[in-house]
């Protein structure tokens, strides 16, 4: 149960990081709090869009879906159901791969690091790890 609560808390954290970056792209935040200037470079680069969609917006939508699933797996009604946890693990895994691609762009194409994006990467990687642990635990014969 603690793991499942952690999944929901991480999803909320990731959601707000993405929302912050998206609001920045919309010009609603003003100066981005970053410290290094790398966040501006990354957010204003051509790579801040993926297939024409803002990466930050993809993050917002992705974390919303993950949060929805995390809230489901937390509910006693779905405690025994394996599908929400499986979906959560699969989607978080996909998000980890997408994040790895974004990190590659930051390091080797844009040559700048956005601390908020690193924060989101840590959140999604942790979520995936916790989801795998919880999924294996749920599938064990004596959960």
């Amino acid at each position, binding site marked *: *149960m603690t793991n499942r609560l952690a999944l929901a*808390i991480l999803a909320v954290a990731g959601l707000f990081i993405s929302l*912050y970056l998206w*609001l920045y792209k919309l010009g*609603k935040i003003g*100066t981005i709090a970053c410290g290094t200037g790398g966040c501006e470079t990354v957010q*204003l680069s051509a790579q801040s869009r993926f297939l024409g969609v803002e990466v930050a917006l993809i993050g917002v939508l992705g974390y919303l879906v993950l949060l929805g699933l995390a809230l489901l797996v*937390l509910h006693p009604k779905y405690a025994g159901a394996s599908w929400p946890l499986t979906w959560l693990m699969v989607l978080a895994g996909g998000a980890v791969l997408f994040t790895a691609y974004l990190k590659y762009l930051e390091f080797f194409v844009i040559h700048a690091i956005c601390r908020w994006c690193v924060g989101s990467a840590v959140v999604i990687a942790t979520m995936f790890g916790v989801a795998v642990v919880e999924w294996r635990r749920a599938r064990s014969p004596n959960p």
Partner: protein
Amino acid sequence: MASAAKMKKNAPPPAPARSYLLIGALAVTGAVVLGYLVMKPKDVSIPANVTVLTADTAGFRGYVLGSDSAKIEITEYADFQCPACASFDVVQFNVVKQQLIESGLVRYRYRDFPLPIHPNSRIASHAAACANDQGKFWEMKAEIYNRQAEWASLRSAAGYLGDLAAQVGVNRGQYDECMQSAKYAGRIEASLQEGTKLGVPSTPTFLIGGQLYPGALSSDSLAAKVRRLAATPAQ
């Protein structure tokens, strides 16, 4: 040990209501923080390290004054924070405007060339671009140069430039929105890149008849160059 682990496994889960309450509280806290960031008065930052997109330059090649049919074009590459540019604008530009532009002899093009040594240059360029959205570029440009000594050394010039914009008759709300979006950052960078590619060595630099003339030229010197060029038969 095993018994403790078993007990832990069999321990009743935290009440879901309490978990949902915790998540709700986190969500509300996050929403309040983001709401505060959206509502608070903004510091404006115009980034220099921006990728120039095609949309940044499409249909825009500087601020133009004068007739389309003018025989000669003068392009000025200038930096709002450069004292020599201010000197040219305050002392010479009005004469150039009266004698060469309004007479139909010259079409004048102003291009941003923000030098990295001037921290407030880009924000001034962006302020002029936002004033241009409301048809007030030339008025704003004149005021920015007139008051250069007052804003150039400010740590944050955004407020001062906003006040200048209001003074030249720009709608402040629309102007603030434009500044916060930093939507012309790419266009300003494109202008700088264009000048760099041409070989602009310093500011101001004038491009007349395909030749670059660095330095704050006098209106007489500019007029002489223009008249010489106008007298040259077309090849």
